[in-house]
C-alpha cells in the first residue's frame, strides 16, 4: 500500500517537474518578439535578426546588444528576431538560415568568433544584409562594425588616476588579445594624463565569464596594495572584491552601481541603439554600403557611465574636458609620444597611431605592470 502510493507520488512529482521545465524552456528562450507598432513600418516591412553569444541576462556584452535591439524596435517599429547563447561554431550558420527562413532581411551577428560563418552565409544569401561585430572580414553584403571603447576607457582612467592614493591601480583582464591590450593601454594613458606616478598592474584570468575567478584575481591585486580596480571581464566579480575591501572600482559594459554601491565609480559602456537604427534605416532606403564602422565617443556608440559619489572631486570636470577634446578631435588617445614598457618610443611626437596598428596592438605602454604571454 505504502509502496504504491509512493510510486504514484513520485510519478506525479516527476510529471510536474517535467511540466515546470517545459514552461521554463518556453519562457526562457523566446526567439521571436511581438511585432511592434505597425504605423511606423515602411511599405516593405523589414525583419531584423540578432545573434548573441551569451544570455541576455549576462548583464554585459549580449545585454548591451539587446538594449540596442529594443531601441531599434522602438525607433523604427521594425520586427526583430533574436537568439541567445549561440556558440561560436558552425551552429551559427543554422541560426542565421533559420532567421532568413523566417523572413529576416538584415542580421546583426554580435561576436568575433562568428566571422567565417557569416562570410559563408553571406555568399549564399546575397539579398540579405549581414553586419558582423568586432571582426575584420567583409563581403558585398556584409560589413563589420565595432566601437572605440578604448576612448571611454581612457576617460575612466582619468577617474582612477585621480582617485588612487597608493598610486597603484589593478586591472583584471580576460585574454591577451589586441582588443584587451588596447583597452589596458588606453586606460593607463588616461591614468597618467592626471597622475604621472601611478602604475597599472594587470592580472590575466583567461576567461570572459567566471565571477569567482575574476574576484580572486582582483583580491590578489588588492593584497598587493592597489586601491582601485578596473576590469575587462563580463561579470561584476572584481567589483565585489573592491567592495569587500573598501577599495574603489571601474566597471565595464553596464552601470554596476547596485552591485558595488560603495566601490563603483563609473564604467565604459556600450550604446548600440543609434547605430543599429541608422544601419536599418539605410537598408530600408537602399543606401547601405559594406563600409566598416569603428565609432567613438563622438558617435555615442561608446560612453562613460555617470560618475557616482565614490568618484573623486574634480573628476567630472577633468572627464568633461577630455571628452570635449575627444569629440572635437583635438585629443587622440594614441597620439605620441608613447613609450612601451622598456622605454622604447612606439609612437613619435606629433604622430598618431593608425587604426591598423591599434587593431593589432601587442605591447604595453610604460606604466603597465604585467606581461603579455
Amino acid at each position: 500500500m505504502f509502496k504504491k502510493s509512493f510510486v504514484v507520488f513520485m510519478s506525479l512529482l516527476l510529471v510536474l517537474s517535467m511540466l515546470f521545465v517545459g514552461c521554463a524552456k518556453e519562457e526562457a528562450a523566446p526567439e521571436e518578439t511581438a511585432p511592434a507598432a505597425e504605423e511606423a513600418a515602411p511599405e516593405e516591412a523589414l525583419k531584423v535578426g540578432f545573434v548573441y553569444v551569451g544570455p541576455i541576462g549576462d548583464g554585459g556584452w549580449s545585454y548591451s546588444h539587446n538594449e540596442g535591439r529594443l531601441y531599434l524596435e522602438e525607433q523604427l517599429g521594425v520586427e526583430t528576431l533574436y537568439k541567445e547563447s549561440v556558440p561560436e561554431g558552425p551552429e551559427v550558420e543554422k541560426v542565421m538560415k533559420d532567421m532568413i527562413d523566417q523572413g529576416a532581411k538584415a542580421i546583426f551577428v554580435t561576436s568575433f568568433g562568428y566571422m567565417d560563418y557569416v562570410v559563408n552565409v553571406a555568399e549564399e544569401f546575397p539579398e540579405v544584409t549581414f553586419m558582423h561585430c568586432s571582426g575584420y572580414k567583409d563581403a558585398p553584403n556584409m560589413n563589420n562594425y565595432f566601437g572605440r571603447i578604448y576612448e571611454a576607457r581612457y576617460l575612466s582612467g582619468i577617474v582612477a588616476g585621480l582617485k588612487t592614493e597608493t598610486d597603484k591601480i589593478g586591472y583584471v583582464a580576460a585574454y591577451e588579445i589586441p582588443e584587451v591590450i588596447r583597452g589596458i593601454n588606453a586606460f593607463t594613458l588616461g591614468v597618467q594624463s592626471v597622475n604621472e606616478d601611478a602604475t597599472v598592474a594587470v592580472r590575466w584570468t583567461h576567461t570572459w565569464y567566471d565571477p569567482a575567478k575574476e574576484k580572486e584575481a582582483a583580491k590578489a591585486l588588492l593584497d598587493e596594495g592597489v586601491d582601485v580596480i578596473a576590469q575587462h571581464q563580463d561579470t561584476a566579480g572584481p567589483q565585489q572584491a573592491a567592495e569587500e575591501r573598501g577599495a574603489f572600482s571601474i566597471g565595464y559594459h553596464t552601470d554596476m552601481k547596485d552591485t558595488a554601491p560603495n566601490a563603483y565609480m563609473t564604467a565604459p559602456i556600450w550604446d548600440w541603439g543609434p547605430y543599429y537604427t541608422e544601419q536599418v534605416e539605410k537598408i530600408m532606403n537602399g543606401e547601405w554600403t559594406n563600409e566598416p564602422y569603428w565609432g567613438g565617443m563622438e558617435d555615442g556608440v561608446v560612453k562613460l557611465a555617470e560618475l557616482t559619489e565614490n568618484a573623486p572631486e574634480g573628476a567630472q570636470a577633468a572627464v568633461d574636458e577630455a571628452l570635449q577634446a575627444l569629440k572635437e578631435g583635438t585629443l587622440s588617445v594614441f597620439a605620441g609620444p608613447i613609450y612601451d614598457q622598456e622605454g622604447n618610443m612606439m609612437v613619435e611626437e606629433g604622430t598618431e597611431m593608425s587604426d591598423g596598428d591599434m587593431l593589432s596592438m601587442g605591447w604595453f605602454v610604460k606604466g603597465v605592470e604585467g606581461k603579455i604571454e
Partner: protein
Amino acid sequence: MAIIVFLNAAVQAGTPLLFATLGEIMTEKVGNLNLGVEGLMLMGAVAGFEIGLVTSNAYMALLGAAIAGAFGGLIFAFLTVSLKANQVVTGLSLTILGTGLSGFAGKSLMGKVVPENVGHFFKAFEIPLLKDIPILGQILFNQNIFIYFGYFMAVVLGIYMYKTRWGLNMRMVGENPSAADASGININIYKYVHILAGGALCGLGGAYLSLVYVPAWQENVTAGRGWIAVALVIFSTWNPNKAVLGAYFFGGLDIIGFRLQKFDISISQYIVDMFPYLATIIVLIMISMRKSRENMPPEGLGNPYFREER
C-alpha cells in the same frame, strides 16, 4: 605574509568544491554515480540567492539551497534507484536541467545583490584561542561561518562513514548491495537518504558561490566547478577527510596563477585549469597500481541493483 593571505584565500576558493565533493562522496558511496553535480550546485545557488533576497534571512537561504539540491537529488534517486535508469545519462541530463532552471529562475535576479544582513552573517570572524595557533590560526580560523560549517561537515561525515553502524551499512550498500540486502538493510531507503543528503550538500556548495563568494546574482556562477568536484571525489579516494585537503589544494591551484603573475612567473592558466584532472588521472593510476582495497571505488558504483538478479 603573502603566503598566509594566499592560503587563507585558497580555503575560501576551495569551500564550494568541498561541499560539492562531500555531497558526491555520499552519493557515490551508496553506489550511485551522479554526474549532475554542476546542475545541483546551480539549483542550490539560485534557490539560496532568491530566498535570501526575499526573506533577508541567512538560515532560510541556506535551508532553501539545501532543499533545492535535495530536490535535484530526489529526481536523480527516483530515476536511478526506483526506475533503475542509466546513472551517467541521468546525471548529465540533471546538469543540463539545473543549468537551465537556474538561468530561468535567475532572469529576474539579474544585478541584484545579497541583502546587507545576510552579507553580514557571512562576514569573516576569528575563533578565540584557535586563531592564536601560529600560521594555521590565521589561515583556517579567520573565516566566515560557512567555511567553519564546511570543516564541521567533513569531520562529521568522516565519523559517520567510518565509526557508526549506519555508515558501515551505507558503505556496504555501495560495495555489495546483494549482501547488504541479504543482511536486512533496506537498500532503497539507504540510497534515497544519501543521494538526497548528497544533493543538499551540492546545493550548499552552489549557495556558497552565490551568497558569500560573489554576493550578487551572476548566471552560471559555478563555471564548471561541479566537474572539478566529480574529479575531486576520485582524487580523495572517496574519503571525506582527504576531500578537505583536496578541495583546498585545488582551490589554491585555481587562484595561484594570479599571485604568481606578480613575480613574473607565468604558469599558463590552461595548465592550471588542466591540473585537477591531471592529478585525478595520476591518482587513478596509483590506485590501480597499489591495489589497496581501501582506496578503491565502491564496487557497486554505477550499477543499478536488481534484487531478482542477486
